[in-house]
């Protein structure tokens, strides 16, 4: 029970962090058809900017400034980069963001060094909030949860209650029609791209000190965010939300349960020895497969239901 509750909370924290990254990507992907490889790079940039800013003027201002810088970078990428490439098709756009991701990783390495930077949780939040069956729950995780819940609420309100939100929603499904009605769709694109990048930057600010801030963090996070977006389905923020929490929980729970297929077979009276065929596959414990599960799910869902969980159209 105690393991279950603690893992549930940790899974929620991780899932919400994933959602902050994935929500921006899902909007970009659904509207513009661009699978943005540089999205996780914005997450990394957010963490590094926050680290540098927090060295000089503190974490709380970094929480606001770093995402804003990321948003500006995103707007610049969309206006001067993607829009140019757009006429060459989706593949070219995707490759453009892929190249950007390479460049950003290298630039980060050259600016902040090859090893992880000591980006720490602010002292104000560095205390255990409550104790659950003898396990401390850090206040910072609660803070992360609060920030991401707040963001979820804000995106939801912005998309459903504001005029620009309605246009964004309409552009998700009928971009040509929205353009025909006289709305400036390219500007909406820039706005969404900048907003999505800023959200990824914010995720970096609060996630960078929870995980580690290092040059490879974009390439470890990137594929998982793709999995979430594709799993949740195009054009569906709710699907993205469910998929994020699901992936977060799966990965957290997989670490906790130390079972393997051999243990499962033992329940049916089959014992696995080293001479059994595929013994190595059968005896791999679940925590080691944990990182693989998202990709297994990705391949499965694309085979069975290419539009994802709640998607409105095929990927």
């Amino acid at each position, binding site marked *: 029970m105690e393991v279950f509750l603690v893992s549930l909370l940790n899974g929620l924290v991780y899932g919400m962090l994933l959602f902050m990254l994935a929500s921006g990507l899902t909007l970009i992907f659904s509207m513009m058809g661009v699978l943005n490889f540089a999205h996780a790079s914005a997450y990394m940039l957010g963490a590094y900017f926050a680290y540098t800013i927090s060295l000089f003027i503190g974490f709380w201002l970094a929480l606001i400034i770093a995402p804003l810088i990321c948003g500006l970078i995103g707007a610049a990428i969309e206006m001067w980069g993607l829009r140019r490439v757009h006429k060459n098709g*989706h593949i070219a756009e995707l490759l*453009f963001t892929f190249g950007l991701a*390479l460049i950003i990783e290298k630039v980060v390495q050259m*600016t902040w060094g090859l090893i992880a930077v000591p980006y720490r949780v602010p002292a104000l939040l560095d205390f255990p909030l409550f104790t659950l069956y003898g396990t401390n729950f850090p206040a910072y995780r609660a803070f992360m949860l609060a920030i991401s819940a707040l963001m979820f609420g804000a995106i939801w309100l912005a998309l459903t209650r504001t005029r620009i939100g309605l246009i964004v929603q309409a552009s998700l499904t009928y971009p040509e029609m929205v353009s025909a009605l006289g709305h400036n769709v390219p500007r909406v694109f820039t706005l969404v791209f900048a907003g999505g990048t800023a959200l990824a930057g914010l995720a970096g600010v609060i996630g960078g000190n929870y995980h580690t801030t290092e040059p490879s963090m974009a390439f470890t996070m990137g594929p998982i965010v793709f999995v979430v977006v594709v799993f949740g389905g195009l054009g569906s923020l709710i699907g993205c939300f469910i998929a994020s929490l699901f992936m977060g929980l799966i990965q957290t729970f997989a670490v906790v349960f130390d079972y393997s297929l051999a243990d499962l077979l033992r329940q049916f009276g089959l014992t696995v020895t080293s001479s059994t065929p595929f013994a190595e596959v059968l005896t791999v414990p679940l925590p080691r497969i944990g990182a*693989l599960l998202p990709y*297994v799910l990705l*391949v499965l869902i694309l085979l069975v239901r290419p539009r994802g969980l709640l998607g409105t159209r095929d990927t």
Partner: protein
Amino acid sequence: MTIETAQPDTANIARRAEPQPAPKPMFRSRVKSRSQWLWLLAVVVAVSLPWLFFNWSTGRHSGFVLIMLSEIGLMTIFALSFNMQMGQSGLLSFGHAILFGLGAYCTAHALNSVKAGNLWVPTELVPLVGGLSGLMFGAFFGFIATKQRATAFAMITLGLGELVAAAALMFTGFFGGEGGISTNRVTGVSLLGASYSASWQVYYLIVVWTLISTVLMRLQTETPLGRLANATRDNFERAEFIGYDPRMVRFYQYVLSGFFAGVAGALYAILYEIVTFDTVSAPKSATALLATYIGGVGGFYGPILGTILIVLLQSGVSLLSNAWLLYVGVLFVVMVMFAPNGILGLIAMHGPIARSGRIAALIGPYLRVLLPGLTAVATFVLLVEMASFVTIGAEQGKSFKLGGILHIDPFTVLPWMAATAVFAIAAVWLRLEARAFGRVWDELSEEAKRLGQTP
């Protein structure tokens, strides 16, 4: 084609009224014979190139050059096999390295069995082992991945790539974990009696296999399957309507490309005698993607050019600079933005002007663009190198020298300001020159168009 000629439409009638352009078949055969000369030239260059770097006083080959040339050979096969999916079938794969790497692993195990005497395969035919295992894994992964196309296909291959890469670290029995699988190419079993202990023997083995694979892949584009792959790439609905199953076309194309990726993997195992987790990992897939795209996805030969460039950058620049991946990334982004058809596309663009005989008129404008272009590139490289020196190089105890003479201290402000200023000026200048170049280019291509219509 036959239908179109049988029912002449208005455009055909209108064209008939005008004087006919040069007869097509003759032109085609001229191109064909020229490309045969290019093949011969490529073979001659590949065979003779190591001897240019042969050290006659010690009687030794340059090991560095031989390995680099061998790498170019096998990566050419790898990139061409990638282009079988991307260029010809429109299937963007993010996990092509799994076919390469699994082929390499299987080859390493096969070589070890040959050495132990459990298996008889002459070293000349060992690449076939890699090819067949690539074929087998291609059939397995292709069965899963080719159910979808376009972005969904890309995502499935991304997932499969990550799965195999993770599995390579997890299952030590087959993959050998972090250390990889070591092997020995000197098995003592050979058709030609060569021992393959010297790297020049391995190089010629790779040359032969690269040639065989390239010819086969070139011929494959002429087969009905190759043509159908193009058809399903351009309009899969129409191909389906005619009665072909686009899924099966994608599948066969994937499997065949798996075979050649496996051959490349096998050559990798033979060359380096160790196969590690790197061979299946995402950076390897990315290398194929970069090489293919920079070279040009449109034609058959693009990936070869791209591979040569990437491997030269990889082995040449990576020795000189910490930041070589940054240069590759910038080159890639510039290509995507300004030359989406790659180097080959850039060359092909000159075709009409060259045929109109006005190519010489471009030399002047080219020279004018060259100066600001080179200045911009040089200052950009200087800026990058200074930055990488400040963060990475200085710790390694190197000092920053330009051309071995001019000593620069990147920890002061002056060189930064000077380099930035020169870069900015060169960029603006380049922009102006590029505009002037564009005007000349437009003029010449207009002229070429007019000449093409009335010869």
